[in-house]
């Protein structure tokens, strides 16, 4: 007589359903981790870029305001008018111009015109009108990353400056007021 016995076969792996669930969960987890990682990285980059931009704006605006404070008389623009350049006399009767110049590299990167803002001082003692020569020592870079700038003369002593900055595709704008601090009466 054969002894029949019901032996239970021991399972040595996962079922397809289990594996599918686990793979699904791991995939979901991976996607979330990667997403969070990139979000975090992007936020970090945005934060750093924002801080850098604020730094650029503060430095640039302060440099422009400091230049204007040495002035005694605005020449361009005229009262209540607006211009992309500013020309004024300083307390030594030198003529100072603040003007934007196209930055080709940044323009290429940003896909729109980006300028550097320069200051040029024509020193009255040495400037010869009959043969005006550009002196590179009198040219200073005030700030970069400018997409637009305008100077509007609010009154004889102060002007409103509108700055637009652009870096890494992001735009920033600010409006500030610059005033002549030097009466020019006392040297």
């Amino acid at each position: 007589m054969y002894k029949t016995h019901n032996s239970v076969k021991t399972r040595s792996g996962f079922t397809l359903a289990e594996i599918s669930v686990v793979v699904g969960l791991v995939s979901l987890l991976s996607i979330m981790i990667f997403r969070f990682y990139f979000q975090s990285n992007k936020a970090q980059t945005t934060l750093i870029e924002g801080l850098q931009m604020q730094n650029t704006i503060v430095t640039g605006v302060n440099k422009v305001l400091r230049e204007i404070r040495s002035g005694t008389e605005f020449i361009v623009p005229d009262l209540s008018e607006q211009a992309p350049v500013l020309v004024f006399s300083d307390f030594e009767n030198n003529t100072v111009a603040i003007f934007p110049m196209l930055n080709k590299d940044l323009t290429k990167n940003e896909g729109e015109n980006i300028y550097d803002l320069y200051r040029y001082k024509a020193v009255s003692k040495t400037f010869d009108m009959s043969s005006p020569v550009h002196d590179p020592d009198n040219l200073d870079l005030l700030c970069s990353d400018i997409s637009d700038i305008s100077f509007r003369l609010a009154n004889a002593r102060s002007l409103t400056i509108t700055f637009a900055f652009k870096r890494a595709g992001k735009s920033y704008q600010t409006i500030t007021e610059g005033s002549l601090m030097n009466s020019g009466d006392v040297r």
Partner: protein
Amino acid sequence: MKKRKGFTLLEITIGMFILGGVLVIYLQSMQSSRKKTEYYSEHFIASIMAAKVVESCFQETDINLYGIEALGLVDESGQSLNFNTPVTDGQTVFFKTPEITEEQHPHLYRMFSKDFMLNIDSEKASKPHFKLNTAFAWKASTGAGKFNFFCNFPGSVIRKEPHSTFAFPEARLEKKLVERFFEEKDKSLGSIISSPGAREVALSTGRIYFSVSNLLRDKDFTESFAKAEQLAGEPHAPDSDKFHQATEIYFNISRNILDLMLYLKPEIERVNRDMNMIDSMNLRNKTRLQVFIRRSGFAVDKLRQIFLISVNEAASRYREQMKSSTSLRSQRLMIEKSLSMHRLLMVSTDFCEGVFESGDARSIIRAEYSRLLDTLEKFFADKDQSIMRLAAQERKFVQNNRLKDRYFVCDLVFQLFAEIASFKENLPDPDPGVPDPDLSVVGQPSGNGTAVGAVTWAQDQLDGGSGRGLNVNNGKKICDDPKAWNDWCLAFVNTAYNREVPELAHESAIASYNAMQRAGKIKTDKRPPAGAIMYTEATSSNPYGHIFIATGKTNENGEPIVITSGSAASFDGIREMTLNQMIDICGNYLGYAVPGQVLR
């Protein structure tokens, strides 16, 4: 049974939940970080904008003392108006030019159009200042955002003690009073005036009389005024150096006079208030003091007249310079100066006697001022809002008669002129025979051809006067040489009358007398009016006779007082004495000629 080696579904699920929880916390932290970044960006822009608003306030108050009020931040009494406005599309005065619009400033517009408010609170920090809190408030994604900027601005009515830089030389004042006012020598003021109150009145009168007459005969002062008048009479363009030079001279004259008048204000107040204290003095000294109080009153009134003439000239010239100015800075300066001068004229409309040659002073001043404000409002309407607001505000002050309340110097000038007017009204009239002095001849080389001018000019040659009368015969002046007029009595009288009396053009005093007598102009009584030309006889010691001038004054015994030049035999210089004393020195009295009858 074989043991299972993996995790159960339950275990994995729990693990996943734990991991998910950690990720959610991380995600929230990231979100919070992003919001904070946005907040800091808004905060940064708000700080720059607040700095712009503060700078605008500074600019407004730079040209307009009441700029904070003109901007609508406080009311007339200086109370805060709770200024609270959005900032886009020109909704606030601070961002009107240029406006923050979606087309022009998209980045700023996006930020500022979402619940971004500009709020300015003001508080009277101290008497002359406002404390301003310029705040930008906005609804940030983190909650509420706010940036505060505290700053002080000038604004409320400034009151201060008037301060003069004028310094009167007090050292010799008492001596001068004794010698000039009371014609005494080697006496103290206390021995002449015993009452301390009356003494103070005398000292104040001395300060007024000597300081004003010193200024009026000061070489720099008279020359600069003459220079200004000469330049003003020439056709110079308003942008020329000479036009500017004349304007500055008029301005400096008015400033110097105001400085002196500030010094004199308490002295005038004292004389005005305590004049009755001199009633206790003896008749002679009281009369002498009254004469000088009266002269002081006229001298101060003359100052008022010169001050207002100079202010009026400066006002109209600054106006012309403003119109022709090519420099914005200079134009702004001219506006400030022109307005200051016009304000002074506006508060002086009741005191303009003798300032304008014709027309009603009040109408002329008001019309000019109104025209100036009109010009400013129209011309700067679209150019410089701060000047336009200043002109509009100024017009309101005028309409409500508030110039005196608002501008310290206006109030000061008004009070000064009111005091002078009251002083002039209360001036004593000690001796109707004594004419008011004609100050235009003080410091001049000769008189002006009038009797009053002759007396004033002759008195100016007395010790203590300018002594600048010129003896053309020897080229000398008494200020340089006390003997300048010794033995030149006819020349002295002739010069006092500016050589305009034909009968004085003779070789000697006695020849002049004979000519007067031939013309029937001699009177022989002893009551000569001021400026009368008087004669004594020729003697063996003085064959030329003597000529001198009546002052119109009498002493306590009713004897006429004359003014005469000296001689080598008598005294040096010019003196006042009674007619009897004159007779004792020179011989018999012949008579006098009345000024009105002898002048051409």
